[in-house]
């Protein structure tokens, strides 16, 4: 009971902070819009894969991009918490470290999912104004995508929290995650299909969990996937479980 209340308290705080930081909400809308319109529109005039409109093709990739950036970046807040000493207030409370981790995961995942829901709304609007032909947003496809996105988000938030729990400065955190999120994004098949890749590139894509998430969501929304969707789901579940385990451990070892 008390642990649940603590988790709720942390989640409540993350929500308040998220909703009060307008700039974060706004950039979470602007950024994917720019990708869809400029990269999607611009490159789309020249390329298409498997007969799919390019803008449509990268839409699932942009959903994952939002999940990736927002989730991992969420870990910076734990560095801030340490810096402003709010972490002391939390760590001295009679709450288990695991609950702290869970509360943070809930907070970070909700932030990310809210942004993803906005992206789905943008998707609906685009479809209705005739952009992104072939994008199939219905209850089932959205539900399956959301499950994929949620599981992936949990794993990605964990990565951010793991790094954040071990770092002391926000600048250091940002440096480290930029080495992580850009390769994870570009080597995921978010922007191009992963068949016929140069041999040196393929292994990077196959070990990247985001590739499987992109593939699963693309399968659900476009009916176009390159792996088996069960494999996709299995891989991201495994990824998230491992990250949660490492995260729980990292939080136990975290120092103020």
């Amino acid at each position, binding site marked *: 009971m008390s642990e649940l209340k603590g988790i709720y308290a942390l989640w409540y705080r993350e929500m308040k902070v998220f909703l009060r930081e307008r700039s974060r909400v706004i950039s979470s809308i602007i950024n994917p819009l720019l990708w869809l319109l400029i990269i999607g529109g611009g490159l789309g005039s020249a390329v298409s894969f498997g007969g799919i409109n390019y803008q449509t093709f990268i839409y699932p990739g942009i959903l994952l991009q939002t999940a990736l950036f927002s989730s991992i970046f969420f870990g910076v807040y734990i560095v801030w918490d340490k810096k402003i000493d709010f972490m002391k207030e939390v760590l*001295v409370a009679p709450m288990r470290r695991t609950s702290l981790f869970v509360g943070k995961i809930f907070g970070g995942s909700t932030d990310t999912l809210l942004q993803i829901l906005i992206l789905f709304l943008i998707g609906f609007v685009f479809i209705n104004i005739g952009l992104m032909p072939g994008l199939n947003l219905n209850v089932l496809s959205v539900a399956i995508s959301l499950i994929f996105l949620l599981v992936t988000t949990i794993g990605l938030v964990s990565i951010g929290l793991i790094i954040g729990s071990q770092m002391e400065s926000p600048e250091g955190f940002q440096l480290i995650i930029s080495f992580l999120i850009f390769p994870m994004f570009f080597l995921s098949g978010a922007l191009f299909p992963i068949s016929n890749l140069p041999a040196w590139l393929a292994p990077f894509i196959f070990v990247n969990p985001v590739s499987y998430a992109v593939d699963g969501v693309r399968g659900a929304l476009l009916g176009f996937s390159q792996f088996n969707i069960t494999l996709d789901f299995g891989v991201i579940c495994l990824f998230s479980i491992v990250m949660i385990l490492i995260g729980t451990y990292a939080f136990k070892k975290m120092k103020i």
Partner: protein
Amino acid sequence: MAIIEIKELTKKFNKLAAVDALNLQIKEGEIFGLLGPNGAGKTTTLLMLTTLIQSTSGTATINNYDIHTQPHNVRKSIGIVFQDPSSDEILTGYENLKLHGWLYDMPDIIREKRIKEVLDLVDLTNRQNDRVKKYSGGMRRRLELARGLMHHPKVLFLDEPTLGLDPQTRGTIWEYIQKLAREKNITIIITTHYMDEADKLCDRLAIIDQGKIVILGSPKKLKKNLGGDIVRLKSTKLNISKLKKLSYVKKISSCNDEICLTIENANKHLQELLNFVGKVDSVEIHSPTLDDVFLHYTGRKIRESAPEGSWADKAMHANIQGGTKR
């Protein structure tokens, strides 16, 4: 049985022993003061006792729970007001308090009642819905205090609770702290640099310096132990080593650009002393206060150290090397 039992508690930062084999027992319901110059190790001690940092060696029990092996139970027994602000600036004052109530699993009705009570205590009721970002420094401090006083733990640690507060607020805080100790039997460990605060509040206190306890006792007893009156002299040509030879001079220390002598029966010896010293710029006698006690045991006045190489500095040195006459 003591509610806090500290055994050989030590914390080293690299080579520096911030807390050096501390031994101490604190009784239930007591208001206990930890005094000491900046960097003496007060905060480090509190952080170890509240399980936030690991000790290098030694241990302590709080409410019979060991800080190393049962940290979770220790945390259930304690509350703390940190020296540095630790509330969330983006939340309002009220939200910070509500969060605290949740983290400590307070029942809703009691939580809301206490929030009202402590907001009123620190006079923040009409600012409770403002974000903490908009608070003044003193208001933030009051919010921290309010939060710490909210959940009535068995043991409450207060690290310089009234730092930067106006006199009215300090007065009401003191009353509340005393009430918590007397009526709720809450044990309170307080660090402070305000000697009047320590004198008024503490049942017992320890002065620590460089991680070690130098003296322990009730404020009354410590003042009495000085064994004499304090004479403050200001003079340009004082001969410290000769002064030290006088039988009734018990202790010499520097305070600002003056020199403080602890004199046995000052009324009787004053004339003799003045004759001995010769021309003085000013002189002042008073019976010992906690300030004098502090000065006596730490060899410098709180938060003020003389510029290097001044005669006051040398006086201090002479005193340390020569030891005190007893």
